[in-house]
């Protein structure tokens, strides 16, 4: 699996090199479509190749690899900022921000209902389920 990954990574790196040679890195990156492509498409490849290189030549230093894989994780989490480009996601987040106050009052009302029913249930069913009762139920109603 590592070699398949390596082979495909080499192919994509070649494509990246050719495209950046043809269009120019700065001009390619300035276009919105290209920003998405570079963020989602090429950066993982570069980091994967770096990771493979590291695992092959770093020897027994396991800690180094862990730190770098953490770095890759943080780097990929940073890409969620690209979601702000999507209108649907922006509207959704705005809705959630607007809903904080009314949802809080709803949650308080629901929690009071929960408290009432939990106390009634505690009085009525509390302690009824124990090991003896379970054994009896399993025997009588399998």
């Amino acid at each position: 699996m590592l070699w398949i990954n390596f082979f495909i990574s080499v192919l994509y790196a070649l494509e990246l090199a050719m495209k950046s040679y043809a269009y120019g890195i700065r001009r390619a990156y300035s276009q919105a479509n290209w920003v998405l492509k570079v963020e989602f498409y090429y950066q993982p490849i570069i980091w994967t190749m770096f990771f493979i290189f590291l695992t092959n030549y770093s020897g027994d230093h396991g800690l180094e690899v862990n730190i770098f894989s953490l770095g890759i994780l943080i780097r990929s989490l940073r890409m969620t900022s690209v979601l702000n480009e999507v209108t649907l996601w922006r509207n959704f987040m705005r809705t959630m921000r607007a809903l904080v106050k009314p949802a809080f009052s709803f949650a308080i009302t629901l929690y009071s209902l929960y408290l009432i029913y939990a106390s009634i249930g505690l009085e009525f069913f509390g302690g009824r389920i124990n090991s003896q009762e379970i054994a009896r139920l399993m025997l009588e109603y399998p």
Partner: protein
Amino acid sequence: MKQDWIYLNFNDFVMSLNTLFAIMWQNDWEQLVNMYELLFNGNKDSVVIIYFVSFIELANLIFINIIIAFIIDTYQSIDLTLKAESEAKDQK
């Protein structure tokens, strides 16, 4: 009766809150009601049924639907205002 249902019990307060939360989503709640009916040997069926069904009526059918309707309503209003803004920008 599945043995796993015993984890949804009312033995302490936190577990009863957990049980109510599980019932709220109506995931096989008939099984749980059946178990509690069996615990009383079928003597208090009506009380058990009234307890669980009234909780489901209140928590699921009313509260969850109010919250969902509220979210959809807010989303639609925000969507409409944003669309109006973008149209106004286009006209300029």
